[in-house]
């Protein structure tokens, strides 16, 4: 049977099945959860898509959407897809220059934006010549002073759609029926760790099959609560949010504001969470920091019972049954410490915690397993799309990404590159035939990631092939692995590890975690003024040095970090150092900080560094700093 399912077709089926009887979306607004039934979803998608047609949108056109998670975001994407169009999401924190690139590249003539801030961004680009016909916003606040004819409210477009429906009755259903499963539903821009972002074209089939994978792997039913607060333009939300609700008819919850997410999650008590690796790392370091500030009794019980958790996690990860004594001890520890802790994190009802995005260190996985959250890792790319291998309850093993999912084939080339095949793959890169030809050969997608397949069929993911380093003595060094270990320290927010064939040891640039280190310094009466000043205090260097040593004990000495520098500022996506999903852009960083890295390997004690820094308002300033280089481990100065 030919699979002709599209996301809008599935949504309409769900509407006929549930109508007003079942909630589809929930949005926290004015402090209460506002519900949207399937009927509301249908009316919004129908009239918005007809409104888009009134504005000149047609089959094959691209609708760019720029905003945080909101029902209107989802309605916009579904509406574009319903009339055979394509949606592409842009991250809200993108700088105007990035927005300009993405809109120009995807060729969208209608842009949907959330609020005044994003409208201003597009308006300023339009003044400079960006080719956009209409801007539609859905949050009215602050929009009273604008009177451009090309600027319109979401509700106006809905009204236009209602008018269109009166003139062309049944047009919407007709257009939806014309959709084919190989039609492109969305363009997802890759995070661009290796150059400019590429637009992966995802068909309805790819999204639906991937969502079915999620539903199967995580046992989703029609009552599963999904909390949408990852950027909707990211592949994770495209599959687990936009596409999965069409497949599972589950409930999507939108938090009130990004800042209220922790409190809203606690109210929701979802059974399933899928956080990026960064998010789990942050949660771990926040928990460790808060525990160090807790009352003596709490600290005592936590430290006393945490080893029980670790012991139990050893049993879980090794798939052994714990003895009754350990089980009883765990119950006690869970009651007293771990359950309240999970509750504070808003994860008390979570059955399946998942992760993706980038590599998550084994020590973080072990820590969460110890407090009763056995995180399932996965491996996936925008092009795959989403996770294509996934650990299950029976295959949890730190370091392993899991076994290939339904409809997925996986192969490792002789030089260790991971290749993927299956019906759920992307359809190529948007306007980039050469890129497509390089990535898709004979149906196999060349991921550019290094990995291996273990005896049990589990995929072990190393990292981007280009990022793996061979050291002078021939030792292979995995920067991601070491960085992830370093980031387990609550005092280290971010790190980048350097090495190479001409270099005998590894070195690191460290971002201290300002809040935590500042608190630590206050307790010890260490005076400081700014981030730069604090990061260069000798006491802070001592602290970070000992943290590096204690967190990298498992790493071979030749591959361990022996010299490091506390950087004067945090890595910043606005300066292009990180992608919008907070992954390191290594090539750019290697060039930008080459002066410091050379000084490290020349054996100098200080590195003098000059650079431009960009403030949030777009102003730049040239600064000159002198940074200490510290030696640790067995290396002699």
């Amino acid at each position, binding site marked *: 049977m030919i699979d002709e399912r599209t996301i809008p077709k599935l949504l309409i089926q769900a509407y006929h099945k549930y109508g007003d009887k079942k909630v589809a979306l929930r949005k926290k607004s004015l*402090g209460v959860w506002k519900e949207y039934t399937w009927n509301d979803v249908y009316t919004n998608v129908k009239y918005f898509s007809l409104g888009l047609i009134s504005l000149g949108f047609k089959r094959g056109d691209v609708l760019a959407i720029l905003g945080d998670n909101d029902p209107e975001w989802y309605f916009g994407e579904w509406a574009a897809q319903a009339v055979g169009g394509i949606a592409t999401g842009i991250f809200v924190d993108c700088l105007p220059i990035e927005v300009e690139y993405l809109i120009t590249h995807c060729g969208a003539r209608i842009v949907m934006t959330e609020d005044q801030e994003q409208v201003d961004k597009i308006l300023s680009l339009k003044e400079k010549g960006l080719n956009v016909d209409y801007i539609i916003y859905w949050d009215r606040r*602050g929009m009273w002073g604008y009177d451009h004819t090309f600027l319109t409210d979401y509700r106006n477009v809905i009204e236009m759609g209602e008018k269109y429906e009166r003139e062309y009755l049944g047009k919407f259903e007709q257009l939806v029926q014309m959709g084919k499963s190989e039609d492109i539903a969305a363009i997802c821009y890759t995070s661009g760790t290796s150059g400019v972002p590429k637009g992966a074209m995802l068909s309805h089939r790819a999204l639906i099959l991937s969502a079915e994978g999620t539903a199967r792997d995580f046992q989703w039913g029609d009552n599963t609560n999904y909390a949408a607060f990852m950027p909707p333009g990211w592949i994770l939300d495209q599959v687990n949010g936009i596409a999965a609700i069409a497949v599972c008819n589950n409930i999507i919850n939108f938090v*009130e504001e990004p800042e*209220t997410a922790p409190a809203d999650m606690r109210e929701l008590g979802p059974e399933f969470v899928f956080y990026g690796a960064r998010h789990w790392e942050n949660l771990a370091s926040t928990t460790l920091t808060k525990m160090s500030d807790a009352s003596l009794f709490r600290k005592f019980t936590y430290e006393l019972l945490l080893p029980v958790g670790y012991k139990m996690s050893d049993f879980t990860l090794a798939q052994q049954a714990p003895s009754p004594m350990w089980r009883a001890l765990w119950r006690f520890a869970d009651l007293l410490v771990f359950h309240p802790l999970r509750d504070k994190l808003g994860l008390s009802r979570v059955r399946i915690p998942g992760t993706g995005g980038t590599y998550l260190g084994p020590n973080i996985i072990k820590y969460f397993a110890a407090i009763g959250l056995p995180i399932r890792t996965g491996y996936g790319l925008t092009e795959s799309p989403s996770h294509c291998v996934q650990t299950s309850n029976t295959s949890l093993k730190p370091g392993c990404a899991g076994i290939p999912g339904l409809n997925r084939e996986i192969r490792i080339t002789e030089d260790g590159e991971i290749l993927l095949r299956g019906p759920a793959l992307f359809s190529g890169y948007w306007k980039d035939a050469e890129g497509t030809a390089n990535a898709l050969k004979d149906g196999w997608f060349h991921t550019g990631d290094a990995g291996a397949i273990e005896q049990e069929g589990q995929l072990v993911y190393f990292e981007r092939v280009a990022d793996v380093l061979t050291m002078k003595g021939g030792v292979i060094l995995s920067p991601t692995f070491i960085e992830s270990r370093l980031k387990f320290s609550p005092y280290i927010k971010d790190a980048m590890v350097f090495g190479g064939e001409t270099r005998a040891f590894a070195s690191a640039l460290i971002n201290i975690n300002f809040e935590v280190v500042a608190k630590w310094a206050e307790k010890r009466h260490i005076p400081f003024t700014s981030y730069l000043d604090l990061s260069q205090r000798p006491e802070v260097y001592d602290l970070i040095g000992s943290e590096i040593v204690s967190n990298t004990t498992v790493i071979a000495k030749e591959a361990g970090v022996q010299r490091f520098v506390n950087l004067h500022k945090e890595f910043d996506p606005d300066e292009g150092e990180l992608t919008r999903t907070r992954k390191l852009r290594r090539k750019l960083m290697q060039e930008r900080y080459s002066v410091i890295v050379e000084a490290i390997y020349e054996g100098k004690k200080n590195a003098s560094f000059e650079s431009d820094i960009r403030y949030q308002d777009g102003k730049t300033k040239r600064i000159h700093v002198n940074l200490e280089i510290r030696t640790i481990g067995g290396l002699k100065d």
Partner: protein
Amino acid sequence: MPGIGYQDSGNEILRVQDLQLSFGGVQALNNLSFKVQKGQITAIIGPNGSGKTCALNSISGFYRPQNGKVFFNGNDITKLQPEKITRLGIGRTFQNIELYPSLNCVDNLMVARHIRMSRTSGVTGFLYFGWAHAEEIMQREKVEEIIDFLKLEAVRKMAVGALPYGIRKRIDLGRCLALEPEIMLLDEPMSGMNLEEKEDMSRFILDIVEEKVPSVVLVEHDMGVVMDIADEIIVLDFGRKIAEGTPTEVRGNQKVIEAYLGSTIKQNTS
């Protein structure tokens, strides 16, 4: 009822007439007169101790001026109690943030709704009986609109005392909004804030004027902010009005430049 000397000029919401206020030998306000038009941001500026806050306190009834009158919508309010003045529709914020530190943000705003509660008496409210429940929901909705407007969602349930200064300033502004006043008197809403917080606050004030409360009297030190957002500026020095006009007019005024750039210091020291 209009007082002596009152002239109705249509668009005027507040009029201060020959206000005299002294503390012992110190003359805080000296024959101060000015008008505030509806739909405008009127800023009162001046060096430290020039009487800006005294003027606000005299309007809102916290100080009793020895002479002069204050008219609100044509009515003499000079002798009224602060609580009565608030009920009439004059809301204010405080320079030093006078919130209830142990109450959370919602409760601090709900306190302001008290003057708008009409259906519940003290007894039914205490017993949570009759209209009390419906009234509570109605008032809470209003408060939630303000929380949304001022982007306070993340601190909704937090005790105010533990919050950062900039946020507390915003809650103070929110409480004033919750009174649903016709005119707001803002006493140094930007003091102690960093640049980003000041930008946010300016945006909030502009939005308030457009969407909620059409008239604002702003006492502020930050000249940049005042010049950017005010429609009218009144400049005080030693309790006297030394200049009045649009930002452009005031900027070039010689007396103002002197007051700010040091001739007052010379007077003091000589």
